[in-house]
């Protein structure tokens, strides 16, 4: 029996909702299921705003959450009532069943549950008080209840609890008591829902599967690729990249510095890149805007650097705790002059790991800034990732010039070559002295603004990047779904690709011929691949999280074919159902045909 179960826990910030979700996903990962999980919480640090923890446990890694959950848990009915519809038919709805005192009509969740949904109403508060002496452990009780109800072993929950709270003995005892109290209660029940966990899948040989967030995966990729230096300035949702590196890098003998702003962060990154080191910074849209001028220096001086960007709602301070994909234009085009750079956007957490390491290879191989574009949804979501036993990254892809016996000041750092890449030298290397300058220059790096030179150097800077599309052992794009001609082709990028893929899978189950093209490398743009994909598709759909359809705009600048833009700015991930509806519409399916 295969497993594909999604659980949503809804509560207020004071209920321990997010903590419960975290323990649940750790336990599920420990069972051996593949997990994807994303939490929604209010921007305020304290308060009683709505929190939702969602996770989906499967046998094979899922790319996104499902439109509907199999189990909905309410820790706070006022917040959970609007989400009752999220539970599927014959799914479970679990809520506080103890006495809650007199309520105004309609404020109890039981009044909102559909006949097809199966209610469970354990006395969470009472069980918490009995087992721990306080009502504060309802969130732990409900986890035990879930374990009991679905006949899951309780030990992984215990271990997840203890590892999360690294608790003192008395706290650990209370947690265990709460968990067991919930478990006993759950195990007493005869179930009517049709939610069923199968045995966890067999373990992959070689790889170790770990549950990790997008930002943590980026960090892991950077560390596995041998990052030497990091310079950064805190900003949501990128901060945790720097925080993790701050504790990890010194253990590797490498150096991290919190700079005075993002201009200095990218400046120092480029300064370090000049010395041959693998260096990076991380920021969000506002910081990337500040970095624009310096990235141009990286482009013209051909200095390797890596910039991790996690997007949030904009413009300006915008919506710091909401997700959006609206910094794409800035990542690809931002800055003055013709300043081409590499932009890659992972589509899931495993991709964050790969891009997090590969970016350093590319920066060196093509001597350019590389922007790795994430968004809050990807940075903060958790997935299980199989990490290979050996990091899949090359330690050094620099092409060093042989400058031995070279004449002083005669080294052609910017030599015009057939593949447009010039062998480099780094400080300390005798005979390789040169000036990296933001002025247009000749092959020696000397200022030169002759027409022919500017034309030749501009061509070099643009053309050298094309090879990146075939960068070794890197998936710049990939087709999923039906081969050959399709009714609907979806071209998607970044975090939204997951929802696009899920919608495509559902559409194919409905008999619609469709395919999805994942585009990871957006600059340089894989024009030929996208053009061929679109030529095969009756209609092309481009879903993304920004108002203008920025990716669609870039696509159309390269491929002159019509696309249907599905551009949304809700601050939330795209809804699978919305993409699916659009696929049906483009495939010519009427709602009636759908029902049939």
């Amino acid at each position, binding site marked *: 029996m295969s497993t594909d179960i999604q659980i949503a826990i809804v509560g207020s910030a004071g209920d321990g909702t997010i903590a419960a979700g975290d323990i649940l996903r750790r336990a599920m990962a420990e069972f051996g299921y593949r997990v994807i999980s994303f939490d929604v919480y209010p921007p305020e640090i304290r308060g009683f705003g709505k929190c939702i923890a969602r996770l989906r446990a499967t046998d094979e890694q899922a790319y996104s959450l499902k439109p509907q959950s199999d189990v909905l848990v309410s820790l706070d009915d006022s917040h959970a009532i609007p989400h009752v519809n999220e539970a599927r038919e014959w799914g479970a709805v679990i809520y506080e069943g103890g006495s809650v005192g007199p309520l105004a009509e309609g404020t109890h969740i039981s009044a909102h549950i559909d006949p097809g949904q199966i209610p469970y109403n354990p006395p969470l508060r009472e069980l918490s008080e009995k087992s721990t002496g306080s009502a504060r452990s309802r969130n732990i009780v409900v986890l035990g209840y879930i374990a009991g109800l679905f006949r899951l072993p309780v030990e992984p929950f215990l271990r997840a609890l203890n590892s999360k709270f690294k608790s003192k003995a008395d706290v650990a005892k209370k947690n265990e008591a709460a968990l067991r109290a919930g478990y006993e209660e759950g195990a007493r029940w005869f179930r009517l829902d049709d939610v069923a966990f199968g045995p966890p899948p067999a373990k992959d040989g070689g790889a170790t599967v770990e549950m990790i967030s997008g930002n943590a995966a980026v960090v892991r990729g950077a560390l596995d690729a041998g990052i030497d230096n990091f*310079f950064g300035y805190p900003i949501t949702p990128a901060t945790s990249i720097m925080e993790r590196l701050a504790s990890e890098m010194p253990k590797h003998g490498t150096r991290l*510095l919190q700079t005075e702003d993002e201009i200095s962060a990218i400046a120092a990154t480029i*300064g370090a890149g000049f010395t041959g080191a693998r260096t990076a910074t991380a920021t969000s849209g506002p910081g990337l805007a500040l970095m624009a001028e310096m990235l141009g220096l990286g482009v013209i001086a051909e200095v390797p650097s890596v910039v991790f960007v996690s997007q949030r709602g904009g413009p300006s301070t915008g919506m710091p705790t909401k997700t959006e994909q609206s910094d794409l234009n800035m990542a690809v085009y931002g800055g003055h002059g013709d300043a081409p750079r590499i932009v890659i956007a992972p589509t899931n957490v495993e991709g964050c790991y790969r891009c997090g390491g590969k970016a350093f290879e590319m920066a060196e191989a093509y001597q350019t800034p590389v922007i790795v574009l994430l968004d809050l949804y990807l940075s903060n979501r958790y997935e299980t990732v199989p990490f290979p036993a050996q990091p899949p990254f090359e330690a050094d892809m620099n092409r060093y*010039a042989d400058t031995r016996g070279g004449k002083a000041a005669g080294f052609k750092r910017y030599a015009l070559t057939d593949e447009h890449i010039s062998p480099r030298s780094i400080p300390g290397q005798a005979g390789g002295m040169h000036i990296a300058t933001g002025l247009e220059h000749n092959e020696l790096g000397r200022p030169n603004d002759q027409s022919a030179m500017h034309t030749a150097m501009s061509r070099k800077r643009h053309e050298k990047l094309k090879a990146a599309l075939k960068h070794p052992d890197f998936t710049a794009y990939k087709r999923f779904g039906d081969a050959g001609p399709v009714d609907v082709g979806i071209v998607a990028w970044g975090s939204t690709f997951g929802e696009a893929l899920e919608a495509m899978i559902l559409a194919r189950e409905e008999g619609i011929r469709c395919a999805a093209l994942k585009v990871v490398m957006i600059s340089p743009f894989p024009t030929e691949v996208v053009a061929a994909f679109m030529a095969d598709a009756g209609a092309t759909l481009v879903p993304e999280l920004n108002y203008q359809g920025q990716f669609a705009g870039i696509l159309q600048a390269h491929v002159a074919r019509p696309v249907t833009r599905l551009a949304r700015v809700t601050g939330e991930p795209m809804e699978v159902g919305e993409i699916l509806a659009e696929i049906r519409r483009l495939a010519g399916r009427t709602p009636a045909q759908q029902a049939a």
Partner: protein
Amino acid sequence: MGDIRPVYLEEKLKEVEDSGRLGYRSKALPTWCPGCGYFAIVDAVAAALCEQCVPYEDAVIVSGIGCSSRFPFFMNAYGMHTLHGRALPVATGVKTANPALTVVAVGGDGDGFAIGGGHVPHAARRNLNITYLLFDNGIYGLTKGQTSPTSATGFRTTTSPYDNTDRPINPLMLLLSYGATWVGQSYAGKPEHLRRMVAAALAHRGFSYLHIISPCVTFDKTHRTYVNLGTKIRELPADHDPSDKLGALREAMNDSTPAIGLYFREDRPTLDDALDTIVEKAGGTAARERVIQKQAGRKTRG
């Protein structure tokens, strides 16, 4: 005025050639206006690097944008000619990535105290182990004569045709309070003094800030001319104690008759020291050795 005597070109050339410092000069001749104070600085830096036997390939000169920031092109060393105002953060990256390098940041008064003013306190407080040479001509030279943060009140420029109404900042006082561990001032019109000061700045372990007063002969015919400066500039009193910060601040406050010399110096752990301490605390000292070897290994490829 005792040291004035006729100097014959050949004699001078021989002296310079024998010193070996010409090796630190690139073949590119400075593109500055004849008479510009900056010429003296090129020679002083070449002499200081030569004196300390820094291999050409181990020196990195980092500049911003301005007439002054053209400097790296005139040196035979590695260099970065970056963005207006950003020499210090770029130099921070160079030095942090490879502490074995001798890093010198250079730039103008606009570069360092207008657009780049936000970086100076941080390089100073961290005690970044580099030398920062600030070429102060009290004007924007490269953009052809606009007011700068060190322009005198009443100075008439292309952007202050009715006189500059702002008051100038006092860079020495700023650097002293930012926590620079070596603060000195010199004058492009006194090449010998300048040479000594650059050498001393370079020899200091920590953030050394040398403020170099330098006339822009093209766009300032009224204020900082050689004639005016020659009469105003004095030496720090012989009894000035460079370990006395308050004394240094008092001297720095007198900017109507600027004094040249070493205002302040102290020993404090550098940014490199601090970063090494962090590595030690994290238990990464052995790994650090490997990183340093990797860094050293890179340059020998070819």
